[in-house]
């Protein structure tokens, strides 16, 4: 077994040193009646070449953006990933290390996290960012809990246009914490209904959670929401499932958000059937001590040299146990590192340009599709790189027809809501060439005509 170095001779010597006769003896504390007493029933072990072949066959059953023209989005996005990233994250000093508990031999991880925290702050317009959360949805749930802690209130309003999986995660996290969750409807423009919001807010409200862009791809009027929410003494939690948008959209911080969370997968990570990505989490300086997750801070060493450490650990489970701000321990460090690399490569100009390309391509597609007979834009609000189209006729049939043409036209909203049976969430990014979009338009024309 190439992963286990023990020779029989080693085993003999080691047992002798320990002073037992057999491996069996080492397990003496495991009572006989708890022993398995048979071999586990698992597939026969494979050699490396057999393994690779088998996995390649399995993987071959999955449609990907290499074989299909895909317009799937809805929380996982197909953006270009520079080759540099995989090269650099493959450096084993990064990926085979763990949480940087020993700072003297973890400065690489630590400095990288510090930079990541900084980039997230710059992008979101916030003061502090943690080192990462599991994903956008769980980060959103943690944000709700933090808002409740910070305001000592228990009621939370969720925008009806919030990504449904984010909403569900919030519900799960809050299930037994005596929180009161309610949804605020959206209008015909796909934006939050501000009247309903005003009605929903009261002095028990801890926060409003709103997507930016929201699940329909629509860009909310964040600034005015912030004003309304703050007037009630509540916090504005902004959830950003597609942070490429922040290259172009006014930052949530600038708009007045109190906590900004989101999913960082767009920043250099493959979609990977939904994970791993990285949840980002940023807040205001004054609330830093109630933030969940790890934080890296800059300090100096004994010789006065700059260095980095994990800090403010008294918020965390390993110190605070049941009083911790969260139970999170392992996070998504490697993915945060990828986001760091991606954002460094793109930089100030690149993040802008890629956002502009996403917008331009999506607008091109939106216009062309909306012009088709039997196809209509579901919402009138401004969108970034996703939009919802409503199609006359049998959407399921149409999608299947397109699949046969190796096109994945979008995510059917029926997956998430019963009230939108004929709607499709279409995502267009910098990866789509004009001819790709034209192809979708042509096929949709054929299919709906």
């Amino acid at each position, binding site marked *: 077994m190439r992963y286990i170095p023990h020779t029989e001779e080693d085993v003999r010597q080691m047992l002798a040193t320990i002073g037992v006769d057999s491996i069996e003896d080492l397990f003496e504390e495991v009572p006989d009646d708890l022993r398995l007493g048979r071999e586990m029933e698992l597939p026969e072990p494979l050699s490396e070449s057999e393994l690779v072949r088998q996995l390649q066959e399995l993987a071959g059953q999955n449609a990907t953006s290499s074989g299909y023209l895909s317009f799937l989005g809805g929380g996982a996005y197909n953006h270009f990933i520079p080759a540099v990233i995989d090269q650099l994250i493959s450096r084993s000093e990064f990926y085979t290390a763990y949480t940087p508990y*020993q700072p003297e031999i973890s400065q690489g991880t630590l400095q990288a996290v510090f930079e990541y925290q900084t980039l997230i702050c710059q992008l979101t317009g916030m003061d502090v960012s943690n080192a990462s959360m599991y994903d956008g949805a769980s980060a959103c749930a943690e944000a709700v809990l933090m808002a409740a802690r910070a305001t000592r209130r228990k009621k939370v309003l969720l925008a009806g246009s919030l990504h449904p999986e984010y909403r569900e995660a919030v519900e799960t996290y809050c299930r037994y914490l005596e929180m009161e969750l309610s949804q605020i409807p959206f209008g015909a423009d796909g934006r939050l209904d501000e009247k309903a919001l005003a009605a929903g807010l009261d002095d028990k409200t801890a926060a409003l959670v709103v997507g930016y862009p929201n699940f329909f791809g629509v860009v909310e009027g964040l600034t005015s929401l912030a004003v309304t929410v703050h007037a009630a003494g509540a916090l504005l939690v902004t959830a950003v499932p597609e942070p490429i948008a922040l290259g172009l959209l006014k930052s949530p911080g600038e708009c007045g958000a109190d906590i900004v969370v989101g999913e960082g997968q767009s920043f250099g990570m493959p979609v990977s059937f939904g994970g791993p990505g990285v949840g980002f989490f940023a807040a205001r300086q004054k609330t830093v001590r109630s933030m969940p997750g790890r934080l890296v801070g800059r300090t100096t060493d004994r010789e006065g040299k700059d260095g980095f450490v994990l800090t403010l650990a008294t918020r965390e489970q390993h110190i605070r146990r049941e009083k911790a701000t969260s139970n999170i321990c392992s996070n998504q460090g490697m993915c945060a590192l990828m986001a760091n690399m991606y954002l460094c490569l793109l930089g100030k100009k690149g993040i802008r340009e890629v956002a502009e390309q996403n917008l331009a391509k999506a607008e091109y597609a939106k216009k062309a599709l909306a012009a088709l007979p039997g196809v209509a834009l579901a919402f009138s609000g401004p969108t970034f790189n996703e939009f919802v189209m409503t199609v006359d006729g049998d959407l399921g049939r149409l999608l299947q027809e397109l699949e046969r043409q190796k096109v994945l036209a979008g995510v059917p909203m029926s997956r998430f809501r019963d009230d939108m049976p004929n709607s499709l969430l279409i995502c267009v990014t910098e990866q789509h060439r004009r001819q790709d979009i034209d192809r979708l338009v042509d096929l949709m024309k054929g299919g709906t005509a």
Partner: protein
Amino acid sequence: MRPGTSGLQLNEKLIFDHSDPGRKGYSLPRLDVPAAVLPEGLVRAEVEGFPEVSEVDVVRHFTRLSSWNYGVDSGFYPLGSCTMKYNPKVNEKAARIDGFANCHPYTPQSLSQGALALMYDLQAALAEISGFSAVTLQPAAGAHGELAGMLMIRAWHEAKGNRRTKVLIPDTAHGTNPATAALCGYDVVPIESKGAGVLTAETVAEFMDDDVAALMVTNPNTLGLFESDIKKICDIVHEGGGLVYCDGANLNALMGIARPGDMGIDVMHFNLHKTFSTPHGGGGPGAGPVGVTAELEPFMPTPVIAREGDAYTLQFDLPQSVGRLRSFYGNFGIMVRAWAYILTMGAAGLKRASEMAVLNANYIRARLEPVYDLPHRHRSLHEVVFSDKDLAGDCHTLDVAKRLIDYGFHPPTIYFPLVVKGAIMIEPTETESMEILDEFCDAMLAIAEEAKNSPELLHEAPRLTRIKRLDETTAARQPCLCWLPEE
């Protein structure tokens, strides 16, 4: 020859300090559609502070940063409780196969059967390894799995109309256990371990009452000791109307030997990044699947991956489910790696892994016991916990840890579990050879000698690293968590 020595290393500033306006590290195709604009008021200025660097700047930056780190591929990394075993390279390759890496989570199920099949088979394998009836793969890490598991326990109680408020947790437990219980709205009742290092059935019986929803136990526990009374303990809890949660972080001691599901445990999380060899990634991502008994199946997070005839499906309709804990289906890329590991090892290989992990820990114990204080004397399984009681020269666990760095080893976990003062928690894992264990033990023994004869070597350690001991107090008092342009 000890591995640690000093050599040329390269300094590297923050990436922001490399920035030069106009420098570029990216390329984009020329825009082939008309430019578009958003309504005024929605658009920001350029991102203040973002770096402008070239590709080579980025490459050198992170290459240099990496050289300041120590990973499993650098050398021995006996970080107790974390199972820092070797991360097979073919698993990395597997996760990067186009059909896995680039399959969108909302791909129609008929076009993602390979991914679903992998998840289904992994669920089944984990169930077989652990003795549970069903497994969910959704949780992103161990603590997330704890949350899923404890929510299921609570949902089970709620479904029965039970209004229990307490969860029993031994004081050896990892911090995530009480934190998770709290997150489920429970009050935590700590059980003191009182010297023995293991729970006895009697102690549990004492604590058990009508208000106890569950016991959270770790087996083998964080002292590396098997909870031999586990079956009786589970019976007591069950009889008292509670359930037993097992923190499965230490499953690497038991594969093929004994199964938590067979011990009476109701729920357990796995750490794929420990037992199943997926990399720790400098902090993550991992994955924390959860196994449950048949009774708890109705409460599993949605969606559930099921098989219908020849097809694999995602099932969303589980009325009693605790709901979802995150988006999509979990850290799929980590599952691919774990599945590759299981396929490589097979049943006998996994058992051998546990056996050799236990052998390694006991070997270290035998070699260090004469010199380092061993507070608990039960047979160790996959890890061993010493204290710093017998150290001379006013030297403490922290000093030993730092001195080990000079010798070229990653230090063990220190000051955990909390029940051992100055704990030195050593988990070698099975992927280390006797040769390496000897190098490490020689270093530990030499350090104990140094503590007697030249304690300053410990107090001043590490001396070979580019950065020496850091001022953590100032870091926490005046936190600097973000680079600012003014700096």
